[in-house]
C-alpha cells in the first residue's frame, strides 16, 4: 500500500465496476476533448491570418442541424453515463442480506470499530476476504467520512444519525482507511488500515486476545459482544420496567420488533430499523406507537453512541416467541 503508482489497487467486488465506469468516462472524455483540441488547433493553423490578408472572415451565422446534433448526441451519451453511474450506486447502496455487520463510530480524531462478536478496534479493521461486510456508522462529534480507496467506497459518518456502507474484499492485504470529510486539526491523522484476512485466520483473530479497552465507554469489557452489553444496559437503564415480557400496559413488547412495520398514534408509520430504534430511545415522544401513552423519558445524553449501538443490537436479537 505504499509504493508509487498511477492507479489505485482494486480490492473489492465493487472496485472493478467503478473502474470500468471510470475507463468508459475517460475514453468518452478523451474523444470529445481531443475532438475539440484538434479542431481548434487545426482551424487556428488553417485559417490563420496571412500577410496581405484582407482580414475578413466568412459570413456564417450558424447552422441549426449542427446545433441540434451537438446538443442531442452529448445528451444521449450523458444519459448513458448517468444510468451506468446510478446502477453502480444502487449496488453500493444495498448491502447483501448475508452481510456481516460492523459498527463504526467516528470521533475527533479516530475510528472506533466494533465487531458483533465482541472485538473492538481503533483505526484498524480486520475483515475476512470474500465476505460482504456492512458498516453501520455514526459520529460522536462532527461529520467524518469513512473512505477506503482500494474498495472505492466512501460514506459520511454523521452525528445524530446512522449511515451505512458495505464492501466485499476480494484480496488479502492491508489497505488505507482515510477520513475524507474535513474534521479539524488532526483530520489528516484520522487514518488507519483495513486488514483483509483469510477466513480461518480471521476466525483465529476474532477469538484472540483483545487489544483495546476504553474505560470511558459502555463497553468496558471488550471481549463481550454488543448484544450482551446491550442486554445488560437494557436492565441497568430500567427498560425492563415497561418493555419486558408480553405487551404491557406501560410500553409495547420489543420481541420480534426489528424489521416490523410500526403504526403511530398520529397516523404515520415506519419500519423498525436502526434509525427508528435510535430515535425511539433518544426522542421517544416523536413517534408514539398507536394505543400507548407518551410516557417514556428521553435517554438523550445518557447513553453514548457505542452504548446505543449495543442496545439496538440487543433489541435486534429479541425473537418474536421470546418473553
Amino acid at each position: 500500500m505504499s509504493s508509487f503508482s498511477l492507479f489505485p489497487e482494486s480490492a473489492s467486488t465493487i472496485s472493478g465496476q467503478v473502474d470500468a465506469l471510470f475507463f468508459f468516462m475517460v475514453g468518452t472524455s478523451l474523444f470529445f476533448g481531443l475532438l475539440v483540441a484538434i479542431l481548434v488547433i487545426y482551424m487556428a493553423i488553417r485559417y490563420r491570418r496571412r500577410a496581405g490578408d484582407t482580414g475578413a472572415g466568412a459570413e456564417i451565422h450558424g447552422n441549426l442541424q449542427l446545433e441540434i446534433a451537438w446538443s442531442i448526441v452529448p445528451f444521449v451519451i450523458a444519459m448513458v453515463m448517468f444510468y451506468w453511474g446510478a446502477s453502480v450506486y444502487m449496488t453500493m447502496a444495498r448491502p447483501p442480506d448475508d452481510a456481516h455487520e460492523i459498527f463504526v463510530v467516528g470521533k475527533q480524531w479516530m475510528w472506533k470499530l466494533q465487531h458483533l462478536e465482541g472485538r473492538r478496534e481503533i483505526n484498524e479493521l480486520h475483515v475476512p476476504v470474500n465476505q460482504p461486510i456492512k458498516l453501520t456508522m455514526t459520529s460522536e462529534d462532527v461529520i467524518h467520512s469513512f473512505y477506503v480507496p482500494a474498495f472505492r467506497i466512501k460514506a459520511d459518518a454523521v452525528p445524530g444519525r446512522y449511515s451505512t456502507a458495505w464492501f466485499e474484499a476480494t484480496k488479502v492485504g492491508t489497505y488505507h482507511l482515510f477520513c475524507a470529510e474535513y474534521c479539524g486539526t488532526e483530520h489528516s491523522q484520522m487514518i488507519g488500515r483495513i486488514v483483509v484476512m483469510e477466513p480461518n485466520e480471521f476466525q483465529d483473530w476474532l477469538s484472540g486476545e483483545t487489544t483495546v479497552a476504553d474505560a470511558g465507554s459502555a463497553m468496558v469489557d471488550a471481549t463481550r459482544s454488543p448484544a450482551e452489553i446491550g442486554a445488560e444496559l437494557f436492565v441497568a437503564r430500567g427498560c425492563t420496567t415497561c418493555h419486558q415480557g408480553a405487551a404491557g400496559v406501560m410500553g409495547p413488547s420489543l420481541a420480534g420488533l426489528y424489521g416490523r412495520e410500526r403504526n403511530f398514534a398520529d397516523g404515520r408509520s415506519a419500519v423498525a430499523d436502526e434509525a427508528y430504534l435510535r430515535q425511539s430511545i433518544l426522542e421517544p415522544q416523536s413517534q408514539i406507537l398507536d394505543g400507548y401513552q407518551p410516557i417514556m423519558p428521553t435517554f438523550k445524553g445518557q447513553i453514548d453512541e457505542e452504548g446505543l449501538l449495543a442496545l439496538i443490537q440487543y433489541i435486534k436479537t429479541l425473537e418474536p416467541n421470546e418473553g
Partner: protein
Amino acid sequence: METAPKRTNYLNADYGIRSWLLTLDHKRIGILYLISITLMFLLGSLFAVLIRLELLTPAGDFVQADTYNKLFTMHGIVMIFFFLVPSIPAVLGNFLLPLMIGARDLAFPRLNLMSWYVYMVGGIFTLWAIITGGVDTGWTFYTPYSTTASHSNVLMTAVGIFITGFSSILTGLNFIVTIHTMRAPGLTWFRLPLFVWAHYATSLIMILGTPVVAITIFLVGIERAFGLGIFDPALGGDPILFQHLFWFYSHPAVYIMILPSMGVISEIITCFARKRIFGYEFIAVSSLAIAVFGFLVWGHHMFTSSQSVYAAMIFSILSFAVAIPSAVKVFNWTATLYKGSISFEAPMLFAMGFIGLFTIGGLTGLFLASLGLDVHVHDTYFVVAHFHYIMVGGALMGYLGAIHFWWPKMTGRMYSEWAAKVSAVLVFVGFNLTFFPQFVLGYLGMPRRYHAYPDEFQVLNVMSTTGASILGLGYLVPLCYLTWSLWRGPLASANPWKAAGLEWTTPSPPPTENFETTPVVEEEAYTYPLKEAEVV
C-alpha cells in the same frame, strides 16, 4: 514617452483621492474594484504558495496542522468571495456594460458606489478575522464543526462574508435594471453582445442565490453565538440541512464565476477570428439555461452524505443535463473559428487557453455527476483539480483575457504584446502541471484538506508544486508589464483590435459621459468584417 493629448476622459476629468472615493462613474468604480480584488488575489495566492510548500513533503513539517487548515480555508474564502465572484462582473461588467449598450452609466450609480463600499467593509471584517487568528472551517463552513467544534474566528469571518454578499446582490440588481431599461435605440435583446447576456444570467444568480447563503451564514452565526439549535444534532438540529442550504447558493456561485468568462470568450474569439459568432441565439440562451439548471443540482455535492438514493439520482441526472449548455458553447466557439481570419494576440491566446482548460474542467465534472464514480472521488484531489480547472483554468483565464483585451480601453495604453504572450503560455503550462497531477492523486485516493499524506503520493505533489511555481510566475509577469504600461505604454487608439461593439466606437479611455451622442444600433452584434468607416 508619449503624452496623452489634452482630451478630457474619465481618468483626467477630476483629480485627487476624493474624486475617486466619491465617484459615481461606473468606470472609476470598476477601477476601484480592480485594485481591491487584485490585492485580495495576491493575498489568496500567498496562502496557495504556503499550501503548496507544505505539500512538497509527505510529513506535515512546514507549518503546523492548525495553520495548514487555516491556510486552505482562507485561500478558499479570499479567492472565492473576494476575488472570483466579483472579478469579471464588478471590474469589467461595471466598466463595460454601459459602454456596450450605449448608456451613460449604470441605472443606479450611487448604489453601484455603495456596493463597492459594502464589499470593502466585508473585506475588512474578513481581513481582521485573518489577522487576529484566522479561521479553520474550510470555505464550506460545514456544521457542526463550524458551529460547535472550531476554535477559530468563525463569527468574524461569517460577518465579513455576510456583508460582502450584499455587494453581489446590489451589483446584480443594478445590472439587471440597466440591461432592461438603458439599451441604446435599436439595441434589441438579440443584438446584445454575448458578454451582456452572460452578465444578465450571472446577475440573476447573484440576486436569487446570494440571499440564501447570507441566511445560511447568519444561521451558523446564531447557532455558534447563542447555541440556538439549527444544525447541531446535540441541540436538536440537522447538520445535513446546512449542506443543502450552503450548496443551494454555492453551486450556482460556480456559475457566477464562470458565466462572465464565457461572455468574455465570445467577444475575444469573434474579434481575433474576424467572424460573427456561430450560433448566437444558442450561446445566449445557454447562459440562461445554465443559470436556471444551475439552481437544481446542488445535491451532487452530497452523494456520500447519506441523502436518499432517489434524491441522489435526481441530482445526478440534472447535473448531467446542465453540462449540455456548456458543451454547446464550446462547440459554437470552435465553429466560430471555421473560415475565420485568425490572429493570435495575447487576449486570443488566453481565450484559446480557456477553451482547453474549461473543456477539461467540464468533462471531469461529468465524472463527479456520475453517482457510482463520485462515491470514490468525492472529497479527494480529483474534486480539487476539477474545480480549479473551472474556476482558475476557466474563470481566471477569462478574466486575464478580458483584462488584456479591454486594457487599452480602460487605461488608454498598450502593454507589451510579447510579455503578454509569454504570460499566457506560462499560465497555461503552469496551470496544467499544477492541477493535472491532482486528478491522478484523486483517483489514487488522496483526500483533500490533508496536512500530511502517505509517501506514495509525493511524486505527484512535487509535480504540482513545481507547476504552481510556473503558474505563479505567469501571474506576476502581467502585474509588472501592465503596471509599467500605465506610464510607459504606447497610447491606444479607440479601437486597437479592430473589434466590433459600441465600447470600441468611443475614445480610449472613454470620456466620463461615455458617448458624445447616444449611439443608434442598426445591426446585430459581431458584424465582422468591420466596414472601413467603423475602424476608428
